[in-house]
């Protein structure tokens, strides 16, 4: 079955252009990604964008350019989020039916796509929510191609209620009463199916910290000490894990402005050793 899937992926891969590649997923959705092919001797870098974003998000785009320029093979996929060939960031108010598991499967599809291109080593780099999804991928898939994980401004997740579960509406029947509107991540009104929301809410801060400690991959977190999207103790909690935490003083959640160079330098430094 897996073999057939890979064959299908290979058949459907359309390296139409040098940088933009598409991948037809098993659910017939088309996934898009930016791809830079580097030196064969260097590991490939897979960049995971943030929540509801695309690979055109500035942090991802700068890293793609930088790392591609440095000779790394770079793949920056855009998660479909249930939308075929998605090119735009998805609104918070959209009807979100994609799940964490869907994201892990798409990333895995791209890993297989790299593997089919004879990529043997992959460095997973995620930004914000993408860092958490990259961590979730390594935790769920244990793909040996992944040699390292770099999490930039990794979110802390949502804390669970007192009873250990998020209070969510019951599953609906496909009408409006089946959609949950909750404040999630940076969305004040995140409209999603309960399964979607539950899949994301499952990744609580504690689970993230635990998965970091449980992972055997080298993990580095690059954080800005002015990141206002994070909880006040999140960086400290990260620092308490086995992961290396590198702080860029003055940088915010998006590492933009003058701090983008600090970010690129920190990423380059983390990649030199591989």
């Amino acid at each position, binding site marked *: 079955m897996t073999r057939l899937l890979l064959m299908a992926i290979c058949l459907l891969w359309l390296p139409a252009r040098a940088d933009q590649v598409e991948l037809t997923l098993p*659910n017939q*959705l088309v996934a898009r990604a930016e791809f830079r092919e580097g030196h064969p001797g260097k590991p490939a870098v897979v960049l995971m964008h943030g929540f509801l974003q695309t690979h055109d998000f500035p942090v991802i785009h700068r890293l793609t350019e930088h790392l591609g320029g440095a000779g790394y093979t770079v793949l920056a996929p855009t998660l479909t989020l249930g*939308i*075929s060939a998605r090119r735009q960031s*998805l*609104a918070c108010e*959209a009807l979100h*039916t994609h799940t964490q598991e869907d994201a892990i499967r798409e990333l895995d599809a791209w890993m297989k796509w790299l593997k089919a291109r004879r990529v043997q080593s992959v460095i997973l780099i995620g930004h914000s929510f993408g860092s958490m999804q990259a961590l979730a991928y390594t935790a769920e898939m244990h793909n040996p191609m992944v040699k390292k994980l770099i999490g930039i401004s990794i979110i802390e997740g949502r804390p669970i209620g007192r009873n250990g579960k998020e209070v969510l509406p019951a599953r609906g029947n*496909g009408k409006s009463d089946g959609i949950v509107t909750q404040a999630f991540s940076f969305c004040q009104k995140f409209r999603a*199916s309960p399964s979607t929301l539950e899949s994301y809410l499952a990744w609580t801060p504690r689970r993230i910290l635990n998965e970091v400690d449980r992972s055997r991959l080298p993990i580095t977190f690059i954080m800005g000490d002015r990141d206002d999207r994070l909880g006040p103790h999140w960086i400290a909690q990260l620092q308490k894990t086995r992961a290396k935490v590198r702080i860029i003083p003055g940088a915010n959640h998006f590492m933009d402005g003058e701090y983008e160079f600090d970010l690129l330098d920190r990423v380059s430094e983390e990649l030199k050793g591989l």
Partner: protein
Amino acid sequence: MKPLSIARLSFLFVLTTSLLVAGLGLYFWLEIERTRAEIVDNERAAASQEGREALATVVQRIRNSAANIAEWEETRQQLYFPDYYALWRDDRIKDAGFMNGGLRAVALYDRHGEVLNHAVGEDPMPMALPGHPPFTLYRQGQELGVLYHFLPIHADPAGKTLLGYLGLKFDLARELRHKHTYRFADLSRVRVNLKDNAVTDLDKLGQAIEFAPASNIELQKFQSLFQSTMLRLSFVVLATLFIASFLLSFLVVRPLRRLSARIDTFRDHDHAGNTPLPASLPLPVLELENLRRSFDEYHARLSELHDNLERSNRSFYDQARQDALTGVHNRRAFEEDWAARDEGGGLGQVALLLFDCDHFKAINDTYGHNVGDAVIHAIAQCLQSALRADDRLYRLGGDEFATLLVDTDAHIAETVAERCLEHILAHDFRQYGMSEPVTVSIGLALSDKEKLCLGELQKRADLAMYTAKRPGNRKIIAYSQDMGDISALVGNREITAVFQAIQDPGAIEIHYQKVARLPSLTPEYSEALTRVRDGDSLLPPGAIFSIVQARNLDAEFDHAVLRAVANDLAAGRLPPDMGVSINISAPGIVHTKVLEAALELVRAHQGRKIVVEITETALITQIETASAHILRLREAGALVALDDFGSGYSSLRYLASMPVNLVKFDISMIHMLESGDDRQRRMIREIAGLVLGAGYEMVAEGVESQTLLDLVIELGFTHAQGYFLGRPALPEAAGSGNDAPVSPGS
């Protein structure tokens, strides 16, 4: 061109002004209507243009909306995962901001054309595609109806992988209103020329929709304002014209018509007689009032002048028709009064009475001019008192009077005549120093059944009156047919001949009788004796002078004789050394015209002996004028002879003062020398001696025998004339043998 009345002119003026105003109003009305129609056309075109532009925008917006939704990733998401399609259709797409403008509903269809999940929305869309997209469907409904636009959605930009279809439902009216402000078009009047469920092409949608212009409030206000203004203006103009007409009529037309009527009244009054105009009211216009006053003043002065002229005319008329001596009507009045009656075809039943004083000449000669005038005046008074109230008395001349009695028969006429005669006989003429009674002869002629003309009636009365004058006859004689012999004497034909002779001296035939110097019997001059040619015969002197004297034609006839003699002398019918003697009547010698003709004759024939013979009557009646004229004749070289000496009533005291050269003894006195008694012969001899002694030359008339010739030679007569010495003859015979002594008895 016939002049128009002021009323008609005023009416034409008002009518013309009204038509002009109406024409201008109509012109403005049509201009405004034309402009309004132009504005409406422009607005219709602008509305159409505006509608087409709006429709183009709508079509573009439909396409854009359709494209945006179709390209929206969340739309494709629904085609993949339609679990929440209803939520997406009802909420999400609204939240995403697509449901704006006229977009009322959205539907997604699967590749088979079935709506996703078979979900029916609040605003229902077709559950299955009614055709094969892309296409646009029109359905009638509220307002302008709705447009359904369907298009396919593909998974890839190349359109190779069909995912499904998108359906959009647009409210056409709302779409047209969306973000559109219409200035010209009225959306409530848009007309869609599409049938229900018609499939149309968005690009051709503009051809199927008609846009009507919106009501132009400003234009309507302007039109309403213009109409009301025109109505008010028309009312004002009509009122102004009415007032102007009234004022024109009151101030101009009526005064002018009153003035014209006043002038007409003046003209009628002027024709009817100069009666004063009725008083008129003052006119309201100063100039017209001045004109009226001037006219009235002019009329007053003209009336006064007319009155004066009328009085003068009346006075002149009366004077011209009145005899100055007696105060009764004169001959002119007689002729004028009866001319109309005569011209009317006859006098009708009238009687003409002719009165003639008997022996008036003798009375006048005997008692003088004043007594004669008094006698005439007294006769006139007597006759006037005897006539009836309406009878008019005319003095025809001298001592002759006449009256016409209208509607009178013979008996009444004779009664009136007798009363006249009685009044005269009863009058005491001795108060004038007369010792003899004065009588009148009355001739009466009647025009009854014969309807005679005045001339004929007058001739008959003449004949009757002459008959009455005959000794032994009644003093009142009515004309009768047995007066034929007398009628021949002074018949109408003879009178006509005399008048023709006066008019044409060629009709006068002069017979010359030689007057010889005594005792040598040398012919010295010839006396011109007048005959009047009447056809083949000649009128004798008696007939001529009775007509001339009866009608006071003495001066005119004398003038004609002078012209006839002048013609004979000019024609050389008399020998150059033969003198001419011409008889001039008493009225003629005092007449200037006769004097001038005589002087001209004398001056034209200087060296020829010209003798003017006058009667003593002329010297007695108007001696001063006659003496002056005789003196002028004598100064011119003429000799003056006193004719018929001894036949009249003149006194011998005049003899000494008579300014004459010759005294011509009347034939009766000469004949007395032969046939008279001794006393008469002695008287003649003494008178002849007296005259001769006074220094006058004497001429003896009627010398018809040798005895008489001897006697007059013996008495010292210087000239002799008579049949014994020569009969009157035509000029050629008279002129022959002038140098030889007259042969007695020839």
